[in-house]
């Protein structure tokens, strides 16, 4: 069947599903760089028009990346659940969008959330391409994904945070100072997660022990993670280190994952190792994944059927299929990190952050976002504010925060700890329940439940500051 759409008197043809998906994608620099973007605004809408009439079930029969050559495609199709898919199996992509919005408006979280095992990344990506930003928020906030290890994440009315205490040389005291600063501002309920400056097993073990000691000493209901390569974490597990979470960056094609040095088997092995430690108290989700639009393109691993470039948003959704296979505690897109050749300006980053959250949630992931930017992108703090508040409204599982918006190790800007407080207070959101109770025990909350602005001689401040004094 020929797929043609007419807009403004012009008829556009989309010979393959790969091209249809790419041309229906809202404009972003990465797709222009890859050579797959629509060549005009009219062609983009024509593609969206054709996509809206495509039966959702098409994606089970026709692939964007081939089944035989790519293990992500095989994972998606081999684990597809036709029973979960049944309620929407007869819909087109456009009808599916409408149905999701109707369920969201009615507050029917179960109808939306139970679909996850029946949805493929391509179905979800296609649907997002027809949605406005507000649609992505409205459905995202009604998609419920709850996970736990020592804190419970994803409950309604909650917004958690990753406390990211990076240091250019992994100095224990420097890392501890940033941890204390974050805890005093009510952050760290999703994870205290460090990007190590070097990927050595010994360094990873030392950092794991450091955070484990802080968590243990103050009885903090959260988990630690050192975001080393999965093979390094395997070595740390062998050494008996206190590993709460196995971390890995993942992407949406087999060659892109090969570029990251990971296979599905390796991830399964590491997950089994962490699970065997039994370190959870309220749940047993022991993996953490990061993703980001453009990662496959930057590794020249972005091609699909016929060698055609696949758009970066579809590939990003495919990365979520990898992540969900390993029952993660948390997943986040690092949305503005990769640079302006993939997401050029605030408009593109904002859109991508909302798409990623929506697609991840709909596929069943506990989705968070690193709201961030680099200095050569056309992005500033105001753009970040808009995205963080929209994500808060969208029911985002967690946001990443660093001291004063400035990551002094990775050299990019993320949110400040106080931005998490702003998002919570503006939108009436609270920390994870176990962490909120801990904040109260530490006398860090006022009578209204807000994180106090402390003087240094307050008992809680004294106790935590002691951790940073040597």
């Amino acid at each position, binding site marked *: 069947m020929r797929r043609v759409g007419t807009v403004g008197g012009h008829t556009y043809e989309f010979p393959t599903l790969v091209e249809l998906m790419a041309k229906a994608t809202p404009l972003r620099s990465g797709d222009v760089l890859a050579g797959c973007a629509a060549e005009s605004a009219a062609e983009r809408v024509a593609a969206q028009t054709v996509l809206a009439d495509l039966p959702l079930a098409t994606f089970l029969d026709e692939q964007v990346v081939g089944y035989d050559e790519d293990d992500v495609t095989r994972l998606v199709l081999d684990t597809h659940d036709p029973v979960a898919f049944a309620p929407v199996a007869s819909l087109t992509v456009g009808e599916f969008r409408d149905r999701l919005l109707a369920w969201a408006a009615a507050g029917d979280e179960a109808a939306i959330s139970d679909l996850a095992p029946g949805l493929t990344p391509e179905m979800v990506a296609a649907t997002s391409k027809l949605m406005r930003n507000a649609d992505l928020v409205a459905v995202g906030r009604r998609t419920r994904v709850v996970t736990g290890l020592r804190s419970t994440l994803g409950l309604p009315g909650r917004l958690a945070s990753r406390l990211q205490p990076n240091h250019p040389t992994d100095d224990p005291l420097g890392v501890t100072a940033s941890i204390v600063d974050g805890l005093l501002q009510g952050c760290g309920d999703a994870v205290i997660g460090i990007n190590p400056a070097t990927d050595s097993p010994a360094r990873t073990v030392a950092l794991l022990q450091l955070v484990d000691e802080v968590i243990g000493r103050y009885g903090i209901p959260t988990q630690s993670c050192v975001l080393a390569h999965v093979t390094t974490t395997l070595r740390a597990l062998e050494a008996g280190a206190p590993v709460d979470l196995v971390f890995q960056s993942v992407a949406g094609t087999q060659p892109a994952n090969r570029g990251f040095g990971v296979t599905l088997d390796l991830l399964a092995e590491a997950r089994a190792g962490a699970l065997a430690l039994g370190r959870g108290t309220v749940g047993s989700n022991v993996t953490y994944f990061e993703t980001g639009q453009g990662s496959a393109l930057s590794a020249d691993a972005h091609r699909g059927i016929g060698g055609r470039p696949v758009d970066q948003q579809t590939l990003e959704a495919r990365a979520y299929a990898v992540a969900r296979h390993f029952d993660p505690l948390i997943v986040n897109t690092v949305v503005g990190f990769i640079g302006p050749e993939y997401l050029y300006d605030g408009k593109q980053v904002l859109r991508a952050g909302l798409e990623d959250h929506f697609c991840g949630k709909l596929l069943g992931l506990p989705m968070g976002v690193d709201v961030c930017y680099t200095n050569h992108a056309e992005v500033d703090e105001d753009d970040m504010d808009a995205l963080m508040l929209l994500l808060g409204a969208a029911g985002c599982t967690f946001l990443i925060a660093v001291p004063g918006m400035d990551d*002094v190790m990775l*050299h990019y*800007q993320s949110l*400040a700890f106080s931005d998490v407080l702003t998002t919570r207070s503006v939108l009436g959101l609270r920390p994870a329940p176990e962490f909120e109770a801990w904040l109260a025990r530490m006398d860090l909350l006022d009578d209204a439940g807000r994180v106090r602005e402390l003087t240094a001689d307050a008992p809680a401040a004294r106790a935590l500051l002691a951790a940073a004094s040597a």
Partner: protein
Amino acid sequence: MSSALDAPLPPGDDPWAVLRAATRARVALGRAGDALPTARELEFRAAHAAARDAVHQPLDPALVRAQLPGVELVEVHSAAPDRATYLQRPDLGRQLAEGTELPRGDADLAVVVADGLSPRAVHEHAAGLVTALLERLPGWTVAPLVLAHQARVALGDAVGEALGARAVVVLIGERPGLSSADSLGVYLTWGPRPGRVDSERNCVSNVRPPHGLSYPQAADTVAALLGAARELGASGVVLKDEGPALPAGAG
């Protein structure tokens, strides 16, 4: 760490100083409600503004020429016509603009000074580093210096090939960070031609006196790498393995 955890709060007027002394991260900034206090907010903006301006300031050829009197200098442009295109199309920044002509010769070395992501780094450090490097290369024939606009590292491959040079060294403005808007990087490639990949290059980064590497330090390293590359007839990973160890921080 347990002794540190147990330590009492040190006396002093500002107990938060404990945190500030432990890291360069922006800790203990205080709050205005649930936001940053005005002074801390403006400090951040000033750092971001310096980084933004470093990216968008145009490369000033007259300034570089004036800093290098007596050095023959040729200007080229990449295929990226403006800054916005350059930032979105790294592929165009690696190609020479159509119709670019360079004098083909038989030099040992071509040196390219490229704006990259920080023209400011070129204005502040390129002349000093070029001078220090040329002093360390007696016996090397060097092609006319090339000043490249809207350039990525790999533009040096096209320039080196066009000049007929056996090696190319690209001095390029690095992506500005909040605390380092003027950092210059150096990339060495033996046998330059389009299609060379990153693993075939050696890199010395963070040339930025007085905070980063000094010109003599960086020039010593690059000259040693060039000597080793000439012996081996190759650069990149192979050279790093067999050649002299890079100094700490030279990346």
